[in-house]
């Protein structure tokens, strides 16, 4: 099938492409011409008028919880991929805290099989330790061979420094990063950030230092072993500062932040709405300010959603007892454009690096290029469309988002990947 994407603004920060009024011809999902195309010259081509729309390398969310296997009532590989496509992503990496955990080649192949025919590439993060229990390292060689692109015990930090050191040493053979959820559980166990708000709300506190202690432990061990560390969802001022300092010293450290941690602060908890409960918790304005600085100066490499679907039954509980986490695949692009691009914190180029280029580089995946002969891997953006996010139109099986009814500027209109297109709420085979 031939498809013409008409009059697009083509943007690729690595290839240094920033051109308006471009036409792209795709043949069976492969880029066959970039330039000026007269639709009449190409018989039977399906034409999409994308005037004033941007085409950028397909977005990749490196921190997603798909819940399959184990909690298919909350999300499946299929529903998660639909949400990803709807949110503007052509690729995601799924975290291993499923039931059972992704600590064997069988579970990896199962997930790969479930996602095989979908437009969205699903990359798998394997458990760093068996059952994510922090006692023995997982069969990393076998997992690597099965195709995992990172190791993590996400949901918790790798339990002890001893086992983390071993995980770094072993994973180094495959040049694969350890992705850490940084939290010292002997200090946490609360329901929100420690501060005046936790005191006033009578909610058990989680001090910011619970995160920072593990960030510094991990940086030191990465330096010592020569391993690669990726700090997931960092949320405090000091975490940003420590990562910045470690990068300056040349330690192999990368980091990501979630849209909620650069958008919201712990004042939002005053109504005890469990859709604002997540781990790490929402922090303070000083933390958000440093995160914005970190995004700007490159300390923070990636934006990732930590998409964590939870059933309404479980979320609709007393605040202290409700599970942590919010869905995020379908609000990420809008929040990043609204809060970062339009507020001039980062440029469009930086935004694309953090949402498309860097996550793939960290996970050793090929970065989509705009060249004839390449398979098209695009996200279609309208940078200026103003819309209200409606959770009822979400493709995820779960609806736990604090951003329902939020006004956003900038939207992902569709995606193209694997000879498939998702546009105007429809999947098409190209």
């Amino acid at each position, binding site marked *: 099938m031939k498809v013409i994407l008409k009059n697009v603004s083509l943007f690729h920060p690595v290839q240094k492409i920033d051109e308006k009024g471009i036409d792209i011809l795709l043949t069976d999902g492969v880029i066959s011409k970039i330039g000026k195309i007269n639709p009449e010259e190409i018989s039977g081509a399906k034409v999409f008028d994308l005037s004033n729309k941007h085409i950028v390398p397909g977005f990749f969310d490196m921190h997603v919880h798909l819940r399959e296997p184990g909690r298919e009532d909350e999300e499946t590989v299929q529903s998660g991929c639909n949400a990803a496509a709807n949110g503007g992503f052509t690729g995601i990496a799924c975290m291993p805290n499923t039931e059972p955990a992704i600590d064997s080649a069988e579970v990896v192949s199962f997930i790969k099989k479930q996602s095989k025919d979908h437009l969205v590439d699903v990359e798998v993060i394997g458990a760093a330790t068996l059952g994510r229990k922090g006692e023995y390292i997982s069969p990393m060689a076998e997992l690597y061979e099965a195709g995992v692109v990172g190791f993590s015990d996400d949901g918790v930090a790798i339990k002890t420094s001893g086992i983390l050191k071993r995980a770094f040493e072993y994973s180094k053979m495959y040049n694969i990063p350890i992705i850490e959820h940084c939290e010292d559980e002997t200090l946490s166990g609360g329901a929100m950030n*420690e*501060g*005046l708000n*936790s*005191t*006033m*709300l*009578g*909610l*058990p*506190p989680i*001090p910011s230092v619970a995160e920072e202690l593990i960030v510094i432990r991990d940086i030191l061990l990465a330096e010592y072993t020569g391993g690669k560390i990726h700090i997931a969802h960092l949320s405090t001022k000091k975490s940003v500062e420590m990562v910045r300092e470690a990068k300056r010293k040349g330690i192999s450290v990368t980091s990501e932040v979630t849209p909620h941690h650069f958008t919201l602060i712990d004042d939002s908890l005053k*109504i*005890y709405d469990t859709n604002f409960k997540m781990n790490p918790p929402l922090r303070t304005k000083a933390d958000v300010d440093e995160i914005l600085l970190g995004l700007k100066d490159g300390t923070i490499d990636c934006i990732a959603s930590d998409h964590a679907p939870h059933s309404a*039954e*479980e*979320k*609709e*509980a*007393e*605040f*202290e*007892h*409700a599970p942590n986490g919010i869905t995020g695949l379908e609000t990420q692009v809008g929040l990043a454009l609204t809060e970062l691009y339009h507020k001039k914190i980062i440029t469009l180029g930086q935004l694309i690096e953090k949402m498309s280029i860097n996550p793939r580089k960290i996970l050793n995946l090929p970065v989509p290029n705009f060249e004839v002969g390449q398979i098209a891997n695009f996200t279609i953006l309208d940078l200026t469309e103003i819309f209200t996010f409606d959770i009822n139109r979400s493709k995820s099986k779960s609806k736990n988002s604090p951003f329902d009814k939020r006004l956003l500027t900038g939207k992902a209109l569709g995606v193209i990947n694997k000879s498939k297109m998702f546009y105007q709420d429809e999947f098409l085979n190209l």
Partner: protein
Amino acid sequence: MPLSNRHLLGLQGVPKEDIQLILDTASTFREVLERPIKRVPTLQGKTVVNLFYESSTRTRISFELAEKRLSADSINFAISSSSVSKGESFKDTIKNIEAMKVDMVVVRHSAAGTPLYLTKISDANIINAGDGIHEHPTQGLLDMYSIREKLRKIEGLKVCIVGDVAHSRVALSNIYGLKTMGAEVSVCGPSTMIPKNIEDLGVKVIYNIDEAIQENDVLNVLRIQLERKAREYFPSIREYAKYFGITEERLEKNGKDILILHPGPINRGVELSSGVADGLNQIILKQVTNGVAVRMAVLYLLGTLN
């Protein structure tokens, strides 16, 4: 003048006029409690459910008595199990109770914010009888009533809350209420039991009990919850009693006529010596009596609010 809110979830943000009205109304009911027949028909036909998700004898009995003395129909719903992992079942419970056409719900729960959640799923007037370590507004009100009864005023008094402030729902309600009424409030306890940033509420923090006694007109001494996690926050009961316990010697040494409150039940020999617990400075049992009158006032004012 009616109350400005149809629920009593906490004393944070409750205006001075409302507190004044509750305390004045309580005075009227306090007089009823001295009569041979301690019952008025004020809430006849109203149904009140006491929904206790956490065991509590004193508060529940106090509310129950207040309801009976106002001639309301009261039902006790005690759920001893603290297994609250099934969130939906909690909502179902409330919806079931709601379907029985109740007018008011008095709720005690181990999780902060639960009374606010109830207001969203129920049309009844909600009264917080203690939510986690958040608030316990009727305790705050009865403490203020008792102080006012004894010292004839609240404004300008110096009141110190002593003990495990971090794990107390009484502390926050006292702080909010007393400050609204113009008292100067401080807290005193081991530093591990003082919650983060409490000074930002306009509260002075004192770590020396002698200093607290010297500086204040009133001590509201909290119960050290020996059976709970609180035990991890100080080295030993002996050390707590030695450095923070209030004894006759300590009161004498500081040569001070000071009013002592305690929400009960007392750990004798820990936060209060027996001599102090039964002594002339304390009004602990008066607080219990006043508690019924204050709860009658709250039930009456909310129940007749339309």
